[in-house]
């Protein structure tokens, strides 16, 4: 099982090949999960060097992206190159995104988290060029997105990008099947092949048997499954999800998160996921960007956010998270020490191993992916995490 995603059930290779079968000319189809890096990249970790070596290429790069709503944002930025929040407000403009720098790496789940109105949607709409940034640069695979013509953007969106919307955005006059096949028919595919592919993705999201339903005949969760299936139909490389689960009630939301992780386990897309729910972010993210008032104030793994919040603002979020679910064995073990037992994986969360460690008489050995011992973890360290001592 790939080490980068320890909490997820392993994807069945069979269904992955099936999902991809209809487009074997897809050059990006190399099964990424196997050569993916660990998601765990704490600098203190002994694996740090290895991680550096394996850092995957940047898929999407935002460089100093600004978006100011209101008239005259452009000239304002000419005059005041690096304005503060207050300066922008004083000029009568709305600072939706302020100098955002973000690198989304291939195959990762990159979560953008922030309170309502912090500019998440605006940022992601800039990334997909649904709106033009006021300033800044966007690179997709080293290609300057802002220089792409309308026609090129249509091609890029048809074949490389997919998006899932908060309120599903299903077409009310089409059935589930037609909705899912829609992006393919837009590209001019034959109805038969488009529907064959649609059947595949509908089965993938667990809606088999509902193909002839209309969106209004489905529950919210089911509608969002359709939205997900639809965005996957044309096999995008880059997948945007703007608060996809926010309109769902908590139980369904959790179920959909599991579903989402299961799908990602199979498909390994590059994902930009937006949420205003810190728990959701922690649960899904490989890395999280925290936004406030349009600015990105920290980009880090969930574990780093909890361990080293960049500001009080971040700390406030992190305070209410159960740390044992965030922190991994590797981050609290004593590196280099030796212990008993046949080895606990360094990627496991404290919550998963707490009982085992606490019950043991002595510290237990910790091993890395390859099974080599890298340290040991003892009862004190685990209890420290559980009772919330700073670590």
């Amino acid at each position, binding site marked *: 099982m790939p080490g980068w995603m320890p909490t997820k059930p392993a994807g069945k290779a069979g269904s992955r090949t099936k999902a991809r079968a209809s487009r074997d000319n897809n050059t990006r189809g190399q099964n990424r999960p196997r050569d993916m890096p660990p998601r765990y990249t704490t600098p203190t970790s002994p694996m740090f060097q290895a991680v550096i070596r394996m850092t995957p290429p940047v898929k999407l790069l935002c460089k100093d992206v600004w978006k100011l709503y209101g008239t005259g944002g452009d000239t304002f930025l000419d005059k005041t190159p690096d304005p503060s929040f207050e300066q922008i407000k004083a000029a009568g403009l709305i600072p939706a995104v302020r100098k955002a720098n973000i690198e989304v790496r291939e195959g990762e789940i990159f979560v953008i988290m922030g309170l309502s109105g912090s500019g998440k949607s605006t940022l992601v709409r800039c990334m997909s060029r649904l709106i033009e940034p006021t300033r800044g640069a966007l690179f997709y695979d080293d290609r300057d997105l802002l220089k792409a013509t309308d026609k090129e953007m249509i091609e890029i969106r*048809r074949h490389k*990008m*997919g*998006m899932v919307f908060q309120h599903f*955005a299903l*077409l009310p*006059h089409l059935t589930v099947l037609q909705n899912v096949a829609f*992006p393919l028919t*837009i590209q001019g595919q034959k109805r038969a092949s488009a529907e064959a592919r649609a059947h595949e993705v509908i089965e993938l999201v667990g809606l088999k048997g509902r193909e002839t339903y*209309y969106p209004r005949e489905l529950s919210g969760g089911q509608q969002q499954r359709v939205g997900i299936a639809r965005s996957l139909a044309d096999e995008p490389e880059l997948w945007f999800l703007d608060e996809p689960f926010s309109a769902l009630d908590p139980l369904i939301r959790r179920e959909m998160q599991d579903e989402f992780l299961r799908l990602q386990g199979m498909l390994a897309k590059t994902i930009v996921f937006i949420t205003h729910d810190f728990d959701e972010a922690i649960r899904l993210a490989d890395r999280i960007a925290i936004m406030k008032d349009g600015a990105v104030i920290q980009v880090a793994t969930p574990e780093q956010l909890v361990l080293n919040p960049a500001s009080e603002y971040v700390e406030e979020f992190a305070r209410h998270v159960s740390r044992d679910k965030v922190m991994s064995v590797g981050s609290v073990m004593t590196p280099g020490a030796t212990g008993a037992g046949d080895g606990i994986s360094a990627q496991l969360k404290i919550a998963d191993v707490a009982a085992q460690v606490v019950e043991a008489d002595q510290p237990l050995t910790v091993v890395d992916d390859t099974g080599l011992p890298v340290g040991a973890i003892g009862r004190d360290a685990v209890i420290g995490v559980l009772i919330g001592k700073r670590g």
Partner: protein
Amino acid sequence: MRALSSRPLWVFGALLALTWVLARHGAGWVGAEGWLGDGGLEWAIKYPTAWVIPLKDYVSAAMKWLVEEAHFGLFTFTEFTRAISWAIEQPYELVRALLAEGFMDGPGRRAKQVFPPFSWLTITACVVALGHYARDWVLAAIVGLAFLYLALFGQWESAMITLASVIIAVPIGVVGGLSLGILAYRHPMFDRILKPVLDLMQTIPIFAYLVPILFMFGFGPVSALVATVIYAMPPMVRITTMALKAVSPEIKDFGVMTGCTRAQMTWRILVPSALPSLMVGVNQVIMLSLNMVIIASMIGAGGLGFDVLSALRRLDIGGGFEAGIAIVILAIAVDRLSQAFSERSGHVKPDVPGARWPARHPRATAVLLVMIAAFILGRFLPFFQTYPEEWWLTTGDFWDNSVKYLNINFYDEFEAVKLFFLNYFMLPLKRFFLGIPWPWACLMVVALGYHFGGWRLAAMNAVMTIFIVTTGMWEKAMVTVYLCGSAVVIASAIGIPLGVLAGTNARAGSAIGVVIDTLQTLPSFVYLIPVVMLFRIGDFTAMVAIVAYALVPSVRYAAHGIRSVSPELVEAGVVAGCTRWQLLTRIRLPLALPEVLLGLNQTIMLALSMLVITALVGTRDLGQEVYIALTKADTGRGLVAGFSIAFIAIIADRIILASARSARVRYGLEEAAHG
């Protein structure tokens, strides 16, 4: 009135009193010998003919030039209109032949039918099938009965001619409206140009553009179709733009993210998503086309409208009433059908593949069978082709007799009512309006504009009143204002209390709702028939007809305003110990005021548009001016009078809208526009 802020209240009162005094005695003063020398201020009461700008002659001359000489390089203007005529005529002739007259061969009156039209049975079967397809057997029965009525009462052929013109006008109106609406949605610039044009189109009475159309296309069904399309299209344009704007932004984003081209975005995302609203527009186009039926017959449409019009001219009450009822029935059938279709759109289940065609389309199969059977049987038994004349039922005598009965037995009562209103309400009002010196009236209108809408509105009002005065329309405009004003007062006096009742009492509300819905489906002319029957021609008749027509919006808006008062506020009133009366007068009515004002606005608009129709019964207002222009095909006269009516409408509209807005701002229901 608390609605006007308290300080200007007495100012308004004083101005009104001054106006009244001027109107009452002004003529006496200025006419008096020796006052201010020779002619005195006579000119202020009666605008001197020598000062009139002969705008209408210029317009007529321009029109003449357009038709006779204008040349666009490749073709002349006349060739252009002929081409349009031809393009409209072909499909119209086809549909008309299919539905009503059959295909003829041979010259003029000696033409022989070479192929019969669809049998009445076929067409009835067809609408029944459509009714069932669109909703259920109930609807099927309703439309089936409606069409049977047309056959049984001998209105079939006229009704089919009318239906043919609707069938041609509606698609043109819908496609045209949709295209313009989409253009306006895509190009905000175009939207900004289109909006005032649409406003004007909806406020200029239809009559005014009948004249130029007549001039360009000649007397005949094509002119009628063109006028119908122009009349019926504006709401479709508006609804299209609005519906496209209302498509959820997420769906639009989705379209972009899927990589839709512009055409795909429009036709595969926006239009289908907006379909339910668009269907409301289609329904509007259909209803307005039917509304035009009688008016269109003035410039050459045949069918039911022509029957009503000629009956009205002959004062053949029974015949007019029968044809009028037939229009109503046709309108109701078509309205229900189109509404059912609009609610149905989107509910379509994809059909099961595999089954044979007849099994998948039972209704179409049944209609085809009826058609073939009726065609074959109709060759031998005329009954199956045309419903036999001997079997026609008629209620004409009944109506004639009941009107006779009412007129003989209740003549005095009707006369008394009429005289009462004329003497104590209408004539004083008329004297008042005709007595106001025009410079003073202009000043007042401009001042009102300034008070409610600032200098912009004041300037617009000034331009418009000056237009009316300088083209020599002042007196007729004042008759118009008086007629419309008295009708609006009475319509509001009846309509607003009814609306309040409907808004506060659910049971009364649903009953009133049904009546209002029915009133709204009736073509405007139908109101005229019974009133003419009882009160004969004259101002009073015109006013009653206008009231009947213009009542609907005042009820609607008042009811809606009362209903949308927040229940929390009403509860607060109850807790504070208000009586029901206090609840109504202290809480509900003041808060509903903006809506009531909007209703008033709509009432005025409808009243003005009906005013022209009532020229038929001999009023001496701008409407009559247009009507005369129509009979003489005098373009300039018709247009100038038409624009004068439109300007009165626009002035009233802007002032009332502005005051409604200021009321809404005061209650915090809307943000102030500035600051």
